[in-house]
């Protein structure tokens, strides 16, 4: 088979959209994207160019642990950490109008910083945070029906910087055919999923890059499947702050619903615990005085995770494409 050039491939595909090859199916009619200027307050976030940076307080050695926080440079050292955004969620309190912004940051593995060799902590665990402007919000390890004891923690950084970049030119896509057309044109896409609960007095607005999208041109269909996103557990919301956030992938094939799949921990088999929990190199929980451990020592190693519980929300999905 002779391979088509990229241009030929996409032109042929785009022609299929414009022709609306199955007449009468909604979302398949030829249309031009509507260039609508959005509110200045909510421009399309450029996630692949947005960073959170913190500067730590000078390091104070832990009273019990030699390798506390993975720091290897000793007392007084100051660390800056810059992490890319993965997704964002705003929670609006209807009564007060207050908006709590949550930023899901990109993960890494837990590490020692900054040595020359031996970076990874083994057993490994994921380092992944959800930050509001003032707090770190715990990420759930259990299903939504299970209660967890973790609490939000106020930032103790010396300083923080949120560099939220936005696309200079972007277009709101108001039909399936516009979503399809923008996808085939190679334009970056974001989705904004908004769920309003009047009884409980809040609105959630998630914004995330659409990294995977399926299309059926002939029938004018699309389906996104992307993530992760920070999905708040509103059962623990006190009107201002959450107790935890679920890490969730989101899928949708329309403008009026979103299906989420929530992440949780899973206990590994006894056979696999033997290699999975084996310490190699420095031990994160090595005590200064083995005879004087703190309560709860040592912490259980992290378990693997899976996505299992699903949650469907009636929501409004808005799609945006960047003009690049």
């Amino acid at each position: 088979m002779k391979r088509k050039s990229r241009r030929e491939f996409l032109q042929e595909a785009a022609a299929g959209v414009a022709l609306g090859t199955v007449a009468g199916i909604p979302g398949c009619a030829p249309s031009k994207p509507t260039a609508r200027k959005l509110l200045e307050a909510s421009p399309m976030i450029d996630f692949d160019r947005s960073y959170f940076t913190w500067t730590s307080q000078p390091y104070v050695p832990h009273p019990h642990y030699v390798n506390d926080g993975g720091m290897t440079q000793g007392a007084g050292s100051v660390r800056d950490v810059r992490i890319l955004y993965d997704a964002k969620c705003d929670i609006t309190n209807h009564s007060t109008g207050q908006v709590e912004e949550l930023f899901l940051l990109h993960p890494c593995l837990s590490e020692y910083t900054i040595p020359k060799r031996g970076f990874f902590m083994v057993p490994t665990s994921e380092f992944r945070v959800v930050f509001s402007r003032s707090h770190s919000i715990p990420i759930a390890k259990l299903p939504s029906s299970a209660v967890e004891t973790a609490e939000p923690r106020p930032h103790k950084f010396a300083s923080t910087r949120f560099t939220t970049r936005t696309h200079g030119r972007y277009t709101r896509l108001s039909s399936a055919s516009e979503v399809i057309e923008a996808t085939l044109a190679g334009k970056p896409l974001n989705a904004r999923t908004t769920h309003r609960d009047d009884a409980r007095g809040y609105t959630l607005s998630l914004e995330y890059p659409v990294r995977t999208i399926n299309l059926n041109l002939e029938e004018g269909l699309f389906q996104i499947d992307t993530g992760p996103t920070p999905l708040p557990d509103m059962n623990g919301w006190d009107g201002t702050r959450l107790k935890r956030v679920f890490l969730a992938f989101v899928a949708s094939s329309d403008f009026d619903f979103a299906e989420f799949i929530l992440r949780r921990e899973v206990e590994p088999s006894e056979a696999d615990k033997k290699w999975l929990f084996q310490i190699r190199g420095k031990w994160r929980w090595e005590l200064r005085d083995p005879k004087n451990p703190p309560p709860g020592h040592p912490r259980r190693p992290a378990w693997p995770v899976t996505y299992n519980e699903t949650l469907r929300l009636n929501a409004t999905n808005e799609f945006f494409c960047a003009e690049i």
Partner: protein
Amino acid sequence: MIDFGRSYFTWKSKPMQRDPYYKYPGGFVGREGAEHRVRIQFDAACTLTNDKTGLKQELFLLCPCRTEFTIVKDNLFQIPNGEFRPVFGREFNVPISSRPSSEPENLRRSKLSDRFADYSIEVRNIEGTKERTTPEQVIEATTADELMNGQTTYRDLQRGVTVTLEYPIKLINLQQKEKLFQVCMGPVPLPDLATWDGVCVDRMFLAELAFSEFDYIEFALRRDVEASDKEKGWLTAVRGRDRLELHDSNRPAPGAAPSRPNLKAYNEIISQKVSTVILSATAG
């Protein structure tokens, strides 16, 4: 410098055909003859160069999604659920390992032209890049919130192959006073050079990476983990459509039934002498 956030792999499926055994092959829920297009963003890239011939094989790790039924209005996610994450090149699909590097697997790369009716690769680049060759320059680029990519190169002299990884630097630590930096992020597609045959490899590892100097790197490789027996009840329970539902339950597909998704963990650590170049550009 690849603009990973604006680079995509797009394929067009072959017209859907009725599978002789399974009701939802590949998770597709649609009429026979339907064609799907799928666009996925790049996560990272790996180029294999045959040192003798100079021929290059570019491979792209694509962003993950969860296994799904397409295109439907309800029960979109497959339960039990797994990750869908491919490594596609310009010519090949190279499978991702689920085992430690010491264990061979019966994996073989396949031609994308056999799998798809058509496909296209859109690699966008960022202009105006600068090489950052000292810790001071890396610190300067980071604190200026510049876009940064790493390009890590190493050679296998015995096999005659050079590997170049390119990846966006999504997480970086600095200690400005001591003029130190440390990149820790991933994943990247790491080739299993034991399967190199002069053209390409037959197995990739998914790896996180970390380094604090330009000539040395460590990778943490991902592999499958077995769940405990007490978790398997809910973990393997089907909800909604069953991806493995048969047309006729009395007529199973020959051979072993396809396995359900497994858990994953990063465990094996590999160190490597390398040459890493850090590129940066203003966000524009």
